[in-house]
């Protein structure tokens, strides 16, 4: 054995380490810092950050097909199992009664999807091919699992930056939204109080809702079926009240394990060689644009509803229609209370927020359908 021939072997970790790896590890540290010290979506950013760190340690073999991250990726991302399982858990945590009590709020869930298409156009203008542009647009759904689901189908090569953008910006909503809200609404609008005297929602309604919604959306937009059905399955498990075991499993074991593995596997795609390029930068900027556009569209539609109803709708709840449940709903309610501590619009905002969740999934499915058809995929 020749010691001099072993030296390169001993130092291989360092000799294969690139500046790109250093940059990506710094990015990983930023994500972990945001998660741990700023508590920004830690359940997602911490695993993503750690996965990114692992992907940039040379020669560890973890991101190879037979490495741990490769195994997790094939098991849960390529099959789309992880985002769908997360949706089962999210569904078990959502209550649709504020929305069912004020069905017109559902319109705000449609308005909050303009960002998807606006971003798509901009991405095309920046030179992205249509399949990639559409995937980037879905960052504007402001819904992690939907973004991952659509990107896996249309442009898996962009999965990492899209997922990172979706989740990072989603966690920055408390910073992104308020200035836009102040800019686009007048103080008078923000002071609008809203009646809340909804009709009672029966348990039967809450049980039928997820079932009927699955069938209706499934027939209207078959491509949205996987996402909407798993969200509704979780909701049905919870609302039925007869399968406590399963609904607890959905909102605990299943979502926790799927979230951890999904985060690691997504993060592990952030290898410097694949991730560090001009496109990633563009996607990050486009993603931010998508969030702003969604908020703007939601607020403008809120103002329209305010005008149409003769000033009975506080436009702030429009900003809650973007999905990002339940942060967006909370922020809208908070903004109203900042102007007038006695003004409580939380229930309306939550109605708009759950509508936004539904709208995001539907819009994702429609985009998938239309683009697949056009590209003949």
């Amino acid at each position, binding site marked *: 054995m020749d010691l001099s021939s072993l030296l390169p072997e001993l130092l291989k970790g360092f000799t294969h380490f690139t500046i790109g790896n250093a940059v990506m590890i710094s990015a990983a540290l930023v994500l972990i810092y945001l998660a741990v010290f700023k508590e920004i979506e830690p359940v997602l950013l911490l695993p993503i950050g750690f996965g990114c760190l692992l992907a940039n340690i040379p020669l560890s073999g973890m991101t190879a097909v037979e490495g741990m991250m490769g195994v997790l990726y094939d098991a849960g991302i390529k099959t789309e199992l992880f985002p769908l399982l997360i949706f089962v858990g999210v569904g078990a945590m959502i209550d649709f009664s504020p929305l069912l009590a004020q*069905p017109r709020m559902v319109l705000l869930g*449609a308005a909050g999807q303009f960002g998807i*298409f606006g971003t798509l156009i901009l991405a095309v203008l920046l030179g992205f091919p249509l399949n990639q542009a559409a995937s980037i647009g879905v960052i504007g759904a402001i819904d992690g699992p939907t973004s991952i689901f659509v990107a896996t189908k249309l442009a898996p090569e962009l999965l990492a930056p899209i997922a990172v953008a979706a989740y990072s910006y989603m966690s920055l909503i408390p910073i992104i939204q308020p200035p836009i809200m102040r800019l686009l609404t007048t103080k008078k609008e923000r002071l609008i109080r809203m009646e809340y005297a909804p009709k009672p929602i*029966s348990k*039967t309604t809450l049980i039928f809702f997820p079932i009927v919604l699955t069938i209706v*959306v499934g027939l209207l937009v078959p491509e949205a079926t996987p996402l909407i059905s798993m969200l509704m399955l979780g909701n049905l498990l919870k609302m039925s009240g*007869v399968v*406590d*075991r399963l609904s607890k499993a959905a909102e605990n074991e299943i979502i926790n394990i799927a979230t951890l593995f999904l985060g690691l596997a997504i993060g592990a795609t952030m290898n410097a060689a694949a991730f560090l390029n001009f496109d990633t930068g563009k996607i990050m900027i486009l993603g931010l644009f998508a969030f702003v556009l969604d908020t703007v569209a939601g607020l403008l539609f809120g103002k329209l509803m305010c005008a149409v109803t003769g000033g009975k709708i506080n436009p702030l709840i429009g900003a809650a229609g973007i999905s990002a449940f339940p942060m967006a709903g909370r922020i809208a309610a908070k903004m109203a209370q900042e102007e007038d501590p006695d003004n409580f619009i939380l229930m309306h905002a939550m109605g708009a927020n759950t509508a936004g969740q539904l709208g995001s999934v539907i819009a994702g499915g429609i*985009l998938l359908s239309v683009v697949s058809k056009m590209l003949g995929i």
Partner: protein
Amino acid sequence: MTDLILSLEITALGMGLVFGAILLLWLMMVLLTTLTADKSPAPTSPEPDSVSETGFKAQAATLAVAIALAEQGQSTAHPLPEPPTAIVSAWQLGMRTSQRAQKGNFRSR
């Protein structure tokens, strides 16, 4: 260029379809809540007066406190009352049954 036109078409079509689907959902929700509403009238509720007195504002305040608590991270894991599940616990019943029997009988002799 073709892609730009295509993307504009997608936007028009897509947002149209989103609004169309959402409108259908609206219709569905109205129908659903009407058809599946509780037949039992409101007065069955045990504490209707106190609620209507304290009114909506008080409830919203309660809500705000709950949010504040949650934001401070003082939430417990399962704040919701757990619905009873009769059949689910069938297996556990079997277990408990025999376990009780065993304790009270087999072992005590």
